């Protein structure tokens, strides 16, 4: 148990009023899922988008100027993506609103106080918030332009604020050539740790994506998956069949998207073809992983000759190549069940700590991990992320 650092004059009221209870010590931890948000929607990206695209999306003129080129732009959203009777923007915690204004997660300096300093974290891996629906755009070039602009914004606004802010290279899934170019543009940047491939209907094991994996492997950048974009625009729902009715329903079943994509990655031999590739499943849960591992293993023993490029048990590929983030941590009635699942997924190798700040269901670094065995905690907070993200060492 550690004491919170003494509040300074500069600390906001908001950060001071929230009590810090006792529990796990997150000092030095790498938070593997943090969301930067726009202050004013896609207007925040205007400085980083070419004139042609600004004209296409109606942002060429200044906001509020009343011209036809100033009506603003939004990516299409999945229909269930709102929480009922929740003030402000959907899915954001109310107690993280920056005192200077703007939605939770939109003020880098406040996030430094409210997350990095408050918990004395070693780093926060930023992964796109408002950009996540670009995989649902039918226009592959617009998607690519927005992805590029987002990466510029992360470097310009977030990384300039604090070296502990690390980034994910956002890429759009529609056009691998643009994605590869973007990986090459940022691959050597010391603070870009991974490639966030935005969701679409294409399964990640398909060779459509292999040029992306080749580039990511060459730069030693893991590929990251995160919820968002499913059901948006041209994308199908994340569930088998039609879109769910309720946000609660979607959120409970979203691992389906991960299951399909992980199974595809394994079955297509991606990890044989790219032995250096790593994949991070962010915020997708992990209690479904034993099911997939066991099922794949059993079927490999029977059907190996259909997929002869798989030379080992599929579960071995998974434990070697795949990492999962902890939030939202399961809260079973019997904590021994959580421990059993952690053992099944070899959590000391595969699990990485995350808060999902500032989302509504984020895990508190001090209190949320009390049910995790010490041997797993010791690895997940700092050691496993640092082994994966080689630029952190």
């Amino acid at each position: 148990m550690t004491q919170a650092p003494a509040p300074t004059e500069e600390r906001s009221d908001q950060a001071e009023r929230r009590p810090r209870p006792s529990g796990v010590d997150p000092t030095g931890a790498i938070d593997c899922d943090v969301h930067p948000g726009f202050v004013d929607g896609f207007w925040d990206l205007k400085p980083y988008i070419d004139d042609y695209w600004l004209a296409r999306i109606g942002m060429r003129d200044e906001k509020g100027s009343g011209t036809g080129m100033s009506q603003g732009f939004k990516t299409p959203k999945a229909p269930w993506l709102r929480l009922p009777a929740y003030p402000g923007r959907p899915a954001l915690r109310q107690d993280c609103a920056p005192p200077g204004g703007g939605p939770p997660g939109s003020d880098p300096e406040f996030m430094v106080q409210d997350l990095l300093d408050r918990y004395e974290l070693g780093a926060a891996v930023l992964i796109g918030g408002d950009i996540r629906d670009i995989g649902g755009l039918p226009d592959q070039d617009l998607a690519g332009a927005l992805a590029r602009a987002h990466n510029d914004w992360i470097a310009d606004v977030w990384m300039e604020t604090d070296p502990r802010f690390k980034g994910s290279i956002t890429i759009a899934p529609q056009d691998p050539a643009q994605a590869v170019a973007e990986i090459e543009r940022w691959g050597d940047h010391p603070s870009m740790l991974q490639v966030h491939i935005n969701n679409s209907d294409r399964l990640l094991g398909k060779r459509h994506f292999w040029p992306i994996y080749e580039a990511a492997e060459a730069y030693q950048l893991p590929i990251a998956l995160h919820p968002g974009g499913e059901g948006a625009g041209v994308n199908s729902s994340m569930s088998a069949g039609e879109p769910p009715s309720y946000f609660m329903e979607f959120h409970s079943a979203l691992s389906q998207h991960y299951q399909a994509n992980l199974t595809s990655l394994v079955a297509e031999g991606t990890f044989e073809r790219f032995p250096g590739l790593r994949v991070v499943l962010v915020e997708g849960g992990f209690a479904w992983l034993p099911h997939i591992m066991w099922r794949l293993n059993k079927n490999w023993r029977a059907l190996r000759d259909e997929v002869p490029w798989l030379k080992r048990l599929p579960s071995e590929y998974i434990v070697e190549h795949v990492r999962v983030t902890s939030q939202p941590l399961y809260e079973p009635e019997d904590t021994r069940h959580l421990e059993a699942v952690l053992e099944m997924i070899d959590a000391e190798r595969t699990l990485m700590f995350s808060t999902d700040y500032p989302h509504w269901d984020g895990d508190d670094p001090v209190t949320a991990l009390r049910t995790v065995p010490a041997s797993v905690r010791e690895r997940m907070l700092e050691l496993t992320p640092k082994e994966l993200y080689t630029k952190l060492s």
Partner: protein
Amino acid sequence: MTEFVVASVDEIPPGSRKIVDCGGRSVGVFNVDGEFYAVRNRCPHQGVALCQGQLGGTFLPSAPQEFVYGLEGQVITCPAHRWQFNVTTGRSVSEPDRVAVRTYKIHVKEGSVVVSI
């Protein structure tokens, strides 16, 4: 028991709340229709500042596709994971028998609101 004078009655009109410090404990003081209630400003889930959340009513248990709004002004929704508590009892709305937030005795004396801990 220690008594803490946390506000004047006029400071917390019906429907409003104030978050106060009682000897190092953060406490939410609520005025629900003229009656005062004091609740620990710490959610039993992950320790977040519960009393900063939305205050209002909620949809009560009902039949499918039936919506029954009630407990107007009595329900605090935790700003983190949205656990809901009735501030007049401290009990969770979804699991009243198993989950609760700490409540404190509170009374009014000579125009002042007093919390006893």
